[in-house]
């Protein structure tokens, strides 16, 4: 589904990613953990080209998206992204936030798009908020709308960039529950997270990124209970 080969990314003279190889299979849930500044968010952002790749290749369903000929907008339409800061469009109500992309990009009729939006709102438990504006919602509600907005494009892959890090503790669960449900339905997901409980419970595989490389990779059981790498042990010692 996603195949990453020799991925390098530098910001000026600062090398953030120092050669990452990885493969994500369909319907897998991958959790990426690591200290802040380790490059895990940059890695995620390279998968839908929000960051321009310095070297290496990212294949999505066999197409190299880093090739100059790749249709970047089409690729992104098929890869949903959820941000730490939600990034809802504040000048639109919830319904318009969800329908704008299907209408403008997938050429869906307003009627079909709205029907889809209501289905998705039902799914994230916010049917009654369709006409509300983002500033009227709590953080947890905003993030659930953001998930619905990404799902409205019917993506093949969902990327989550620390989706619960900006939330008050009591709202984390409602977002994680939606993500769990999504994982259960078979969505291919790559999640950068500090929620070790979620990673342990939901992930098929966990990646520990340290200093721009994958320091350790394995099943949640293996990473959390029997980490081999010293740096993984040190990191988990601090967060668990």
């Amino acid at each position: 589904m996603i195949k990453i080969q020799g991925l390098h990314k530098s910001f000026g003279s600062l090398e953030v990613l120092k050669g990452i190889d990885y493969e994500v299979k369909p319907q897998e849930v991958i959790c990426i953990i690591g200290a802040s500044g380790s490059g895990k968010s940059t890695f995620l952002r390279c998968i839908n080209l929000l960051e321009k790749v310095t070297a290496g290749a990212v294949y999505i369903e066999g197409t190299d998206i880093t090739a100059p000929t790749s249709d970047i907008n089409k690729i992104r339409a098929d890869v949903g992204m959820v941000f730490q800061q939600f990034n809802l469009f504040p000048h639109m109500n919830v319904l318009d936030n969800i329908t704008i992309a299907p209408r403008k990009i997938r050429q869906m009729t307003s009627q079909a798009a709205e029907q889809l939006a209501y289905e998705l709102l039902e799914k994230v438990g916010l049917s009654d908020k369709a006409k509300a504006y983002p500033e009227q919602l709590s953080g947890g509600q905003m993030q659930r709308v953001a998930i619905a907005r990404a799902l409205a494009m019917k993506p093949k892959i969902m990327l989550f960039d620390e989706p619960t890090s900006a939330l008050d503790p009591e709202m984390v669960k409602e977002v994680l529950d939606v993500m769990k449900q999504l994982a259960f339905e078979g969505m291919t997901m790559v999640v950068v997270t500090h929620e070790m409980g979620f990673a342990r419970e939901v992930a098929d595989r966990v990646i520990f990124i340290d200093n721009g490389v994958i320091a350790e990779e394995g099943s949640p059981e293996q990473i959390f209970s029997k980490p081999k790498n010293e740096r993984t042990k040190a990191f988990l010692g601090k967060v668990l």
Partner: protein
Amino acid sequence: MRTIAILEYFDFIRFDIIWNYRELYFRGLLVTIALTAVGYTCGIILGLLFGLGKMSERKWIYYPAKWYVDFFRGTPLLVQILLIHTALIPTLFGHSLGFFVSGSIALMLNSAAYIAEIFRAGIQSLDKGQMEAARSLGMPHGVAMRQIILPQAFRRMVPPLGNELIALLKDSSLVTVIAATDILYAAKVTAGAYFRFWEPYLFAALLYLILTWVCTKVIAYVENRYSTSYIPAKRRRFFMRKHGV
């Protein structure tokens, strides 16, 4: 009879000289309004283009836009008016096209430079996550700009654009230097005819004050409607009632 008595008390103020030139003041008022309106409207359109130009990554678009803004913000409007009226237009057309054309072109070009900066600041002050979210949904840059960025940036631009309107309205008095028959011109004519200065210039000041006051009211209305919250005003009232805010 009472009013006449009060006027007699102030008989050291010659209201009659204003009254005698009322048609000139009225014409002046219209000219000032028209010059400002044309200069401002065209300035907004041109300003948007230069503002976008200043955000371009292409050097051959960026530099001309930057030089334009630097020139028109860095030189006095009075000099620009004289340059356009006495040099630029006669060179291009062989003769003058009248004060109105020169005056509105000068005001337009000048305000465009300021509006370009307002526009650029309005867009660049938006959180970069907005563009990223739009692009991550597969929107091409143009669609993201039109649907997501500009509607938000316009709201932020309302207060500085209002300031620019008021500044331009007052600066339009500089066109008297090319014999435009605006408010200030009427005052100068009156002053010259009667050799009295308090009444004509105070009256001119009063007219400008009324115009800027009206502008302030309109801007406050627009700000209240579009700038304070993203929720449409109608829905906002409902929301406030519902939550007892």
